[in-house]
């Protein structure tokens, strides 16, 4: 029993650092999600557009992101851009890289949602004299939101876990924090497990939030 208390005491001292790192993870995740929704919506609309000028960049964006490793994308933003004269802080670089990365997957999710809306609903809106923007905001997107909520929150969870990759570009998030403590204490098992459990708590909370949102949006119709 005493051993257990001693054990806990040896870890407890580091918890404030871990919690601070969790806060960084949450900030990163929220910002990345926002960026991904903007990129994703734009790309999804581009992919379904009848105009090539919108379709080709959207197709290229999704193809490139899905075909290359996330880590390489992060390196291109953080290490590569300075060579072209654009220096970014690790945090900003991380948000951009992961936001743009997640955006490609969000684009495919939203595109699936857009295609699920029967064409007749758009036609009847057009026949009544509604504009493209009115049709999108009043008819299509409200329904798409409900359809894509489950896969979008799944993608958000993936983004949260991907923030651990930002440890490679000196962002002091949870994984990096664990590594720093481990290099001082030489107890990799203990502290990587702590980090994993903290990720688990955050992803579980995120999934609970998504379940709550889904229920809130539940089948009125």
């Amino acid at each position, binding site marked *: 029993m005493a051993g257990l208390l001693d054990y806990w005491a040896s870890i407890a001292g580091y918890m404030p650092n871990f919690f601070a790192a969790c806060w960084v993870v949450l900030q990163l995740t929220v910002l990345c999600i926002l960026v991904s929704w903007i990129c994703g919506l734009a790309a999804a609309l581009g992919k379904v557009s009848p105009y090539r000028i919108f379709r080709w960049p959207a197709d290229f964006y999704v193809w490139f992101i899905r075909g290359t490793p996330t880590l390489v994308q992060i390196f291109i933003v953080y290490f590569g851009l300075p060579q072209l004269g654009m220096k970014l802080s690790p945090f900003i670089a991380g948000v951009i890289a992961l936001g743009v990365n997640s955006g490609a997957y969000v684009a495919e999710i939203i595109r699936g949602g857009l295609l699920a809306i*029967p064409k007749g609903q758009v036609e009847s*809106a*057009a*026949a*009544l*004299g*509604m504009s493209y923007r009115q049709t999108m905001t009043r008819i299509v997107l409200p329904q798409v939101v409900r359809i894509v909520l489950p896969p979008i929150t799944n993608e958000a969870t993936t983004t949260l876990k991907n923030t651990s990759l930002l440890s490679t570009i000196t962002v002091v998030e949870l994984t990096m924090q664990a590594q720093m403590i481990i290099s001082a204490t030489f107890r990799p098992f203990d502290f990587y497990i702590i980090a994993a459990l903290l990720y688990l708590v955050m992803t579980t909370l995120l999934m609970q939030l998504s379940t709550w949102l889904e229920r809130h949006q539940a089948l009125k*119709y």
Partner: protein
Amino acid sequence: MTEAGIDEPALIRLVDLKKSFGKTEVLRGVSLDVARGEVIAIIGASGSGKSTLLRCINLLEPPSEGELWFDQEQIDYGRIDRRRLRRLRSQIGMVFQSYNLWPHMTVLENVIEAPVTVKGLAKAAAIARAEELLARIGLAEKRHDYPSRLSGGQQQRVAVVRALAMAPKAMLFDEVTSALDPELVGEVLDLLGELAHEGMTMLVVTHEIAFARDVSNRTFFVDQGVIAEAGPSQKMLSQPQNERTRQFLRRVLHSGAGMTRL
């Protein structure tokens, strides 16, 4: 007999209208006039181009060639700007085979959406008008229900009312009873009959031959992208001159469909 009365200018006028989808010519030169208050039935086999004809009028399909006139104004469908297009469409109501109500909105919200969003009507005024229209078709108590709770016939009548709420000058009906169970067809046709009686200008693509005969003024038979025969409905449908019209009517009437109103 595709022209309307000589003294009154036509509300809708098509001159040699053609429409191709890629290499396929669907409409090969259709000319017709529709006078204000006229009810025109358009019959023909599937693939004959009758739906396309209807959809060219409100530019859901822009024609490839030919003249399109609405309310004595020629429509330059190739270069019409979006605002004028929306204004044109707000004056022509359309009801579809699959009703196309918006499932995430209640019946009332479906009906007031376009008057508020497109015409800028005040919400209270739109609601008042919508409730009047819904009461007229006996669905006032369903106004806060979602479309999924209504039968097909009820949904289709709501779709008609949704188009009517825009106070259109003319209405297009694209096989509006074809997707309905037979026992629900009557209530929709009755509503169309009422609208006709009130003087609405209507173009009705339909398989319901009895309806065409009893309610419409003139009938056009579309065959392979042209109007093969046209004439006063009663006369044309009981004594068609064209052999293909005769064949078509034989097939439709023989199958038992088209006589739901008997």
